[in-house]
């Protein structure tokens, strides 16, 4: 891995994810820190990253590197952790039944990845699909079910869902721009994950 990627590209990418993931484009605009549960989930994801070889901490920090290089490596680890927590927090609905359901969904998905022992490529695919599914649920499905309804059928559906869930379904209304910002943030996060220094495989050498 080049020093530019390690010292500049990765930390700045993950910090941008932390900033954009915390932005809530409501009126007034607020910036929120990741939730406590997302911090717990992020620490599990960090374990999965190491287990699947997506992230090799030994390539970021070890005794043979200069102190400055180790500082850069530590910054990459810390920002990757915070970006993961922020993305999980961003993809989890604000409150009620959907928040609980998505939190459990993330926990199960991460535990499955831990147990499956997949490689780097498969992990990145599965993790991208998991996060995109959560994105679809929060920013498309839930936004349609809890946002302002302009047609009678949509209003009737909202009333039905509210009634069936005893009001535990409603979410604070967020502008459409929130979804676009979340999508860009998610793409940036996955880009950062793909750039992480992974486990290097030993080359196969044919002996004659």
């Amino acid at each position, binding site marked *: 891995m080049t*020093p*530019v990627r*390690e*010292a*500049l590209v990765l*930390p*700045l990418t993950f*910090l941008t994810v*932390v*900033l954009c993931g*915390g932005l809530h484009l409501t009126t*007034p*605009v*607020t*910036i*929120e*820190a990741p939730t406590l549960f997302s911090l717990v989930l992020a620490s599990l994801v960090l374990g999965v990253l190491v287990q699947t070889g997506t992230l090799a901490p030994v390539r970021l920090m070890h005794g043979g590197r*200069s102190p*400055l*290089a180790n*500082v*850069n490596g530590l*910054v990459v680890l810390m*920002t990757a952790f915070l970006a993961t927590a922020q993305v999980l927090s961003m993809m989890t609905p604000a409150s009620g039944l959907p928040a609980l359901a998505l939190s459990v969904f993330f926990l199960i998905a991460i535990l499955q990845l831990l147990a499956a022992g997949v490689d780097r490529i498969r992990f990145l695919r599965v993790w991208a699909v998991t996060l995109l599914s959560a994105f679809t649920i929060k920013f498309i499905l839930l936004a349609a079910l809890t946002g302002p309804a302009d047609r009678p059928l949509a209003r009737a559906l909202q009333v039905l869902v509210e009634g069936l869930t005893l009001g535990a379904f409603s979410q604070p209304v967020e502008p459409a721009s929130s979804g676009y910002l979340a999508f860009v943030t998610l793409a940036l996060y996955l880009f950062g994950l793909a750039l992480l220094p992974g486990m290097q495989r030993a080359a196969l050498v044919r002996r004659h």
Partner: protein
Amino acid sequence: MQEPVVRVIGATLSAAYAAFIVWMAISQPQSLAEVAGGLSASVGAYRVDPVGFNDGLRFFHQDRFVEARAAFARADAASLDPLTQFYIAYSYYREGWGRVSHDDEAYTAGLKVLDRAISLAPDGRIVVDDPQLQMRSADELRAELVAGQTREWSDLNPMRVLRSRK
């Protein structure tokens, strides 16, 4: 570029970016002007526009409070100057003051601005040297704003109408 230089630049940029994010999360700026003002204040470069401030002061003493607040907001675009914020809070007090009853909405807005001004002031102390004001400290103004929002039996005292605006 040499590797150690890249690493130093990376570490410095990351630390500055992280500090910026923490500052944004703590101060919750509401506009780009507040972001720019906060950043310039952090390096001691933030200045209140004297023309806007004097305009605001002139409107304030003419009891034209809406105009005064607009001028003060222009002068202190990032809402970081305790003195300007004190005058904005005072304008809410004077606008909301009534001989029989006070405007709770104006008093609440005034209290919010004043609390922000107190949090910005060194040691939380704001004292204004303006002979045209009867309350020259944030403590006096705050007590008046809080008292104006409190419901008590003395509110029914008919002698209240003899009180004057400060």
